[in-house]
């Protein structure tokens, strides 16, 4: 068995439209490896090819070229999908079903027998925070947040080893988001691989260990969240820096700012930061803080997207 939950090799999808057969490369030779048990985020602006990529993993969309494997098996084989739980974006669950009926139906399609389904359905509904009133309520009466929760429950009912979630907290209130995050963290601890496709960068940063940023169908940047958000500078903070010394320190700094009475100097290299610390100590100034700078995932994302757009 493969050590990767997802492994794609040159995965490409070309759509041809109209009489002219104009080509659109929605996904262009994407090769990624998602280790088993990891939490992986797929980011990208609208139309970057994220959803097409996910649909190829699930064999909803046929690849023009390249391969996609799930736990070492070709994702086109129906049996390979037995290990996958999926919550689509813009899902349209049948409104004539009740919450219970929906889990019963998708559980049966996942191969669970009737007695297992009867046992697991109340467990799953409770896990995603849907109370008993919701069990026999038609989905047409559900709120957007409730639909997301029941959607997550259907993705989990067969205890998948890989969870692919497309905008899982879309339409869910902050309390619900926290609850969904806790459910996912719990699954992560159990060794479930979670593949998250989300526009909420803060959510991805909080939850995922690795991310890939897709732009125009290609992987523009990939790595661990820690690596990608690691800044290249150093921040030195000191309270009550004399005016004369401030001018001297500013001269070598990339930037300086005053925050709550503490002056923070930003240096590009470790040597410059050390020199600033020496200077401050020589002038009997206290060091309030000394840290490597970090970018937010949003800053990394914006920078990557802008660079590739240019």
């Amino acid at each position, binding site marked *: 068995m493969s050590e990767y939950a997802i492994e794609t090799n040159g995965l490409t999808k070309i759509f041809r439209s109209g009489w002219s057969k104009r080509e659109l490369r929605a996904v262009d030779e994407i090769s990624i490896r998602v280790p088993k048990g990891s939490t992986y985020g797929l980011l990208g602006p609208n139309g970057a090819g994220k959803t097409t990529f996910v649909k190829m993993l699930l*064999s909803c969309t046929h690849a023009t070229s390249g391969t996609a494997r799930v736990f070492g098996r070709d994702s086109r084989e129906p049996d390979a*999908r037995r290990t996958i739980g*999926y919550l689509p974006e813009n899902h349209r*669950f049948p409104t*004539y079903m009740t919450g219970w009926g929906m889990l019963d*139906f998708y559980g049966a399609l996942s*191969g669970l027998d*009737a007695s297992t389904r009867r046992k697991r359905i109340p467990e799953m509904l409770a896990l995603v925070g849907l109370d008993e009133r919701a069990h026999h309520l038609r989905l047409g009466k559900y709120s957007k947040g409730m639909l997301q929760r029941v959607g997550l429950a259907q993705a989990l009912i067969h205890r998948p080893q890989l969870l692919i979630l497309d905008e899982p907290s879309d339409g869910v209130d902050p309390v619900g988001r926290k609850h969904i995050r806790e459910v996912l963290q719990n699954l992560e601890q159990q060794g479930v691989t979670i593949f998250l496709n989300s526009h909420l960068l803060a959510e991805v940063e909080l939850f995922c260990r690795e991310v890939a940023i897709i732009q125009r169908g290609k992987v523009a940047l990939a790595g661990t969240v820690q690596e990608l958000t690691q800044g290249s500078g150093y921040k030195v903070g000191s309270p009550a820096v004399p005016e004369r010394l401030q001018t001297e320190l500013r001269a070598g700094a990339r930037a300086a700012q005053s925050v709550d009475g503490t002056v923070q100097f930003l240096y590009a290299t470790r040597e410059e930061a050390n020199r600033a610390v020496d200077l401050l100590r020589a002038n009997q100034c206290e060091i309030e803080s000394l840290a490597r700078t970090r970018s937010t995932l949003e800053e990394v994302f914006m920078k990557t997207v802008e660079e590739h757009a240019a």
Partner: protein
Amino acid sequence: MIATYALIVDTFREAFARRIFWGFFGCCTALLLFLIFILGIDVVEGSLATISIFGNTLPTTNVENLVPQTQSVIAMVLYFAGMALAVFASAGLVSAMFEQGRIELLLSKPVSRLHLLLGRYVGNLLVVSANILYLVIGSWIVFGVKTNIWGTGFPLSSLFTIFIFAVLLAVIVLVGVLWDSGAVAIMVTFAIMIVTPILAQKATLERLLSSEWSRDVVRVLYYVLPKTADVSVIIRHLILNQPVESWMPVWSTALFGAAVLGFGIWKFQRRSF
């Protein structure tokens, strides 16, 4: 097996959530209640009967002719009007499966595409078959109890009605796979239901057409398309206990249905959603 059963049960649930199937069921029930309570048949002197509707007695008639004639009228109403209603109801049922946000979830399950499509096809066929059998077997029992005439032609005719629906459902499935549209599926299927009885008058059309190529077109269309009108004649013959001249309309229609369903499955397998 679990998945197949789930797909069929789901189709039943969705069908009953759509009021049109309840309308179909209601019409069948109304006709059965009419036969049970309003239509009075008293058999007198063996083969003669007096018939009363709403208590008004009609002239005495031969019961052995009356029952098959009435049954053939019911079968024809069911064959044409019931079929139109069933097509109308089923078109939405098939295309609903291809809605974005729903099909992706179905395809993400460990079930083959062939299985998914056939599950919906068989489920839909069973829903309509249940309604057809309900009316035909129900009215056959009512006639049998009232007249003690238990001819097998009438119940047998329901199998041919179901068969023609199965062929038209294959067309609905193909159109659904190609264009995701219930409305287009209804238009195409109704066009077949309207054109094929005209083509059934092949001999007359050939006399009326002046050029040989146009006669060839009529011949090709006649042999390729399902023969709904010709099968209705076979049904009438079966009910009236008359010999069937040719079974060609049945097997050629079956070939058309198998080819269309096969093409629909092939397109569904290749399609990206």
